[in-house]
């Protein structure tokens, strides 16, 4: 009662109490409404329980509903008072001729959630499950999981009844609720309750045609978790599901897509698979341009999964993912991400031309991501390299401030230069970058700049002065920048020994006492090497890169072995966060009865299969680790990368760099 400490509010409650006990019906009703209003805003009105339930004696259904709402809210706080209502419920369930009243009573009865009341409930519940009226039945079947959650020990007879009902029920709506209700119980129970057989499947397929949209979703969702016995059965179910692709509710369509995609693996007939893909694709594209952006977003979040397993579905459809100016940014981010995934050796020009436009957008995060995507596409396709660089250079020309996208620009340019050193000549890229070096302020961007200065010292006017500037601030720099400065400083020294002798001395002096062991160790290694034989250092640090290296396109998000489970859960919360259900929900066990390999459906494109496989294996090993380990591993790799950097074998460095980059992207998405 402390909550209602002051007198004025106590007065309110007393007033309500008086009104509830008034003889005037209208006054009572108004009072009940007020009680509900208080409940809504979070005030405790449980004190009035007795007075409220006394009002149940009236047959006014609106008032009855309000009182039931009140009872449900407070029954667990006042179990003893709630017992007084039991007679009312039982009377309603058993005596009322009105199906609406019977249903209302059984619906509310289930929500009381007081164990000792539930024993009074079982008998009326059984009656309702076999009621003549489908409206009562559909309500009663949903009442079972409510009771099961609180008093599972009471339920076995009712569960038997449900199983029998599954075989004989003919109303589609009841059937849909029944499936949903049994699934809910399965989740709590952990045991399989729905026993599928061809007859029941037939029944469910028939029900899909007849029941309302939500029911269709329950049934399709359920069927998507079923593993068909053979190709024939899969074909039949797919055939019966196909019409749903034309339903106006996007979720119905999406569930149908999910079911069909999953069952494709079971089909023997390759031509049929291709035809089905042709049918699914336009339907899916309609969903992608759905006019409710929230829905659009959920579909987009599932696209990377579909793309990974069914690249064939979006062949030549990259345009669908072009962002329009007025779209909310959370949609734009998703589209951008998908555009990189969908980009291939045929459409990269189209994608790059589009990305070029996004560079002018207002949102700095989005522009940054765009720049990163451009860099990535340049890395993936040798032919795209020049185009990517010229777009980035064009952007660099207009840089006037140290913005977020500019940081990304330096990072990407470094990566691209590493792939092909000769790019520095393209469109005067080096010169333009040099003019804006001062705008780098993030550690990674600074380190990229330091690398550029060291690597291209001979082409940069006053490179030594620039390096001096950096080294003067050595001690306040981030570890990442310090490490790069060491290597770049040594490079510069090798290139201009006489000019830089003081510089390298200053550098070593600043670095040798670093608290960071990495920095210290690297300093000593360089120091020793330089003092033994500068020629060796030259060979190591300034060796010419060995042509452009091989970068594999790897934009996979899911592990191949997880694809099927992920597919079954398409549309669910876990998939939206790009996780498996068991990673997000502790109580979910993963069914592991998938003996089959997940097939990948590609358009006719030549692929060197063995190489791909190898790569997949390699990556699988990497990705199998839980996130934390992965992070560790990433650190290790970073470490490794630096170790390589130490000796500056350009080739392996960039290769590693690529790997970590891909990894990082996985994080981005999560």
């Amino acid at each position, binding site marked *: 009662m402390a909550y209602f400490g002051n007198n004025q509010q106590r007065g309110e409650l007393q007033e309500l109490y008086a009104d509830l006990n008034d003889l005037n019906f209208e006054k009572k009703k108004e009072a009940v409404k007020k009680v509900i209003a208080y409940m809504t805003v979070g005030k405790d009105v449980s004190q009035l329980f007795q007075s409220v339930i006394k009002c149940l004696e009236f047959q006014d259904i609106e008032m009855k509903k309000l009182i039931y709402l009140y009872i449900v809210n407070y029954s667990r706080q006042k179990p003893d008072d709630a017992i007084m209502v039991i007679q009312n419920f039982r009377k309603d369930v058993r005596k009322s001729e009105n199906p609406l009243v019977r249903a209302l009573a059984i619906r509310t009865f289930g929500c009381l959630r007081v164990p000792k009341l539930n024993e009074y409930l079982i008998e009326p519940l059984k009656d309702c499950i076999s009621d003549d009226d489908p*409206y009562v039945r559909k309500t009663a079947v949903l009442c079972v999981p409510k009771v099961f959650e609180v008093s599972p020990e009471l339920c076995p007879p009712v569960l038997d009844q449900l199983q029998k009902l599954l075989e004989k029920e003919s109303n589609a709506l009841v059937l849909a609720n029944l499936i949903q209700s049994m699934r*809910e119980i399965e989740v709590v129970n952990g045991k399989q309750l729905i026993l599928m057989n061809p007859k029941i499947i037939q029944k469910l397929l028939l029900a899909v045609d007849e029941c309302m949209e939500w029911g269709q979703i329950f049934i399709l969702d359920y069927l998507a978790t079923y593993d068909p016995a053979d190709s024939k059965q899969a074909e039949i179910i797919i055939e019966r599901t196909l019409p749903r692709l034309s339903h106006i509710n996007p979720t119905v369509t999406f569930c149908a897509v999910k079911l069909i995609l999953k069952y494709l693996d079971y089909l023997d007939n390759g031509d049929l698979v291709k035809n089905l893909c042709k049918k699914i694709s336009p339907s899916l594209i309609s969903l992608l341009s759905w006019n409710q952006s929230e829905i659009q977003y959920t579909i987009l979040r599932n696209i990377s999964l579909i793309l990974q397993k069914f690249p064939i579905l979006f062949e030549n459809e990259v345009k669908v993912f072009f962002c329009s100016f007025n779209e909310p940014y959370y949609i734009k981010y998703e589209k951008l991400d998908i555009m990189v995934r969908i980009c291939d050796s045929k459409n990269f020009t189209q994608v790059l031309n589009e990305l070029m436009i996004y560079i002018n957008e207002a949102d700095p995060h989005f522009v940054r991501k765009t720049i990163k995507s451009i860099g990535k596409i340049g890395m993936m396709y040798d032919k795209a390299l020049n185009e990517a660089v010229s777009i980035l250079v064009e952007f660099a020309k207009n840089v006037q401030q140290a913005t977020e996208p500019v940081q990304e620009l330096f990072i990407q340019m470094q990566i691209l230069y590493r792939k092909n050193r000769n790019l520095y000549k393209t469109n005067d890229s080096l010169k333009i970058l040099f003019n804006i070096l001062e705008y780098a302020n993030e550690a990674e961007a600074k380190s990229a700049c330091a690398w550029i200065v060291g690597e291209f010292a001979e082409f940069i006017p006053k490179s030594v002065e620039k390096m001096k500037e950096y080294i003067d601030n050595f001690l306040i720099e981030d570890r990442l920048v310090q490490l790069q400065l060491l290597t770049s400083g040594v490079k510069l020294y090798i290139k201009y020994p006489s000019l830089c002798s003081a510089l390298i001395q200053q550098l070593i002096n600043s670095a040798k006492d670093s608290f960071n062991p990495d920095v210290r160790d690297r300093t000593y290694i360089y120091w020793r090497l330089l003092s033994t034989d500068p020629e060796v250092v030259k060979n190591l640090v300034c060796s010419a890169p060995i042509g452009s290296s091989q970068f594999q396109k790897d934009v996979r998000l899911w592990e191949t072995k997880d694809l099927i489970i992920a597919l079954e859960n398409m549309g669910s919360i876990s998939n939206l966060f790009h996780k498996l259900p068991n990673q997000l929900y502790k109580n979910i066990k993963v069914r592991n009865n998938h003996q089959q390999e997940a097939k990948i459906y590609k358009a006719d494109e030549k692929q060197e299969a063995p190489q791909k496989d190898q790569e997949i294996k390699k990556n699988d090993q990497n990705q199998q680790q839980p996130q934390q380990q992965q992070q560790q591993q990433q650190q290790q790799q970073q470490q490794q990368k630096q170790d390589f950097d130490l000796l500056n074998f350009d080739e392996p460095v960039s290769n590693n760099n690529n790997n970590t980059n891909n990894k990082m992207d996985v994080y981005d998405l999560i």
Partner: protein
Amino acid sequence: MISSIVFINHKGEILVYRVYKDDITRSETTQFCAKIVATKENKECPIINIDGTSFIHITIKDIVVLATTKVNVNVAMTLQFLYQLVKVCRAYFGGEFDENCIKKHFVLIYELLDEVMDYGVPQIADADLLKKYIQEGGLKPELMNDVEKLKQLTSQATGATSWRPQNIVYRKNEVYLDVIESVNVLMSVKGTILKADVAGSIQMKCLLSGMPECKFGMNDKLLMQREPRKPGQTTTDKGITIDDLKFHQCVKLPKFDKERAITFIPPDGQFELMTYRITENINLPFKIMPVYNELGKNKLEIRVKIKSIFEKNLFGTNLAIKIPVPKNTANVSTNSAIGKAKHEPEQQGVIWRIKKYPGDFEALLRCEIDLGSTTNQQPWIKPPISIEFQVPMFTASGLRVRFLRVYEKSGYKPTKWIRYITKAGEYLHRL
């Protein structure tokens, strides 16, 4: 499934709060209100996870409609349900949905919430159907005592044609069809079409007695190829390619899948029969040709030529061409032969409005823009030029309704009306 449904105002105050499952506490929801709704932080994203609870929400004007859950629900379904819920509320409140009417009708909303969802599982959420047994101020006692009527009601609600009650009678049977097409175009700076599609919708208003079976036909290429050619019929009309169709629940989908025939028993009154999407052979009704010039440091010139590409006897109406101008625009002088062009600072653009625009016609607008001085050194980010229009009796896709047949056992012949209109969706030309 769903643990609770909550209506929240823009300040983060709870207006309606209905719990379906026990696994959620009120404080978790108030936390969401305080953290997300009130601060408007990251509110855009429709799903947010906080400590194992997922908050799935949509925002309608100032109201956030929220569903919470702790299990792995189907998000698309949840969102769709929330939209449907708003639609139901609007149907009850005469199209309104704001804080005032929520507060005023909260008793009714609770009653509806009790019916549309049970134990977090979506149930009957069709406004027409709900209105049969849930009404503001309670039902008439006659209905509550008439067991026969109630049985009829529940069997309709749970039956296979839940959208249409029996025994409807009209003195005059009429059908109205509206074909509404929205054209979405994105043109590059150079004027090449980057993407173009038509999002169509066919709205129907049925004032028909009894249980009529309707059959609807368009110049759908796939359907016309199936039909046997009648002798003497010209073969010029081959029909159009429709990428994708989505139908109202009343359309018999298996029949469409097999025969591509659209058959249905319509609901009473107004509804959306279908939506479609077309990407091939679109007739763009307007072409925009902008020229952008910088005349010195503080002066810009934008010239926009617009051309209508449809027959002379048709008219475009209510054209509004929005030409973006920089924030620091001080003065704009415009010059055009038709319509009115005006700088509207709150829209950050020059809006050129033309009430009526003839077919096959060209017009030019010249804007001279004087820029004020600004401290902002950032170059101006040019948003695309957009255009709004309507062209009655024109379809950008070339879609035509070929027939609508109505069969009813009493054999009446209804009067049928049809209208076509093409509107601008996102009609953009990059500058």
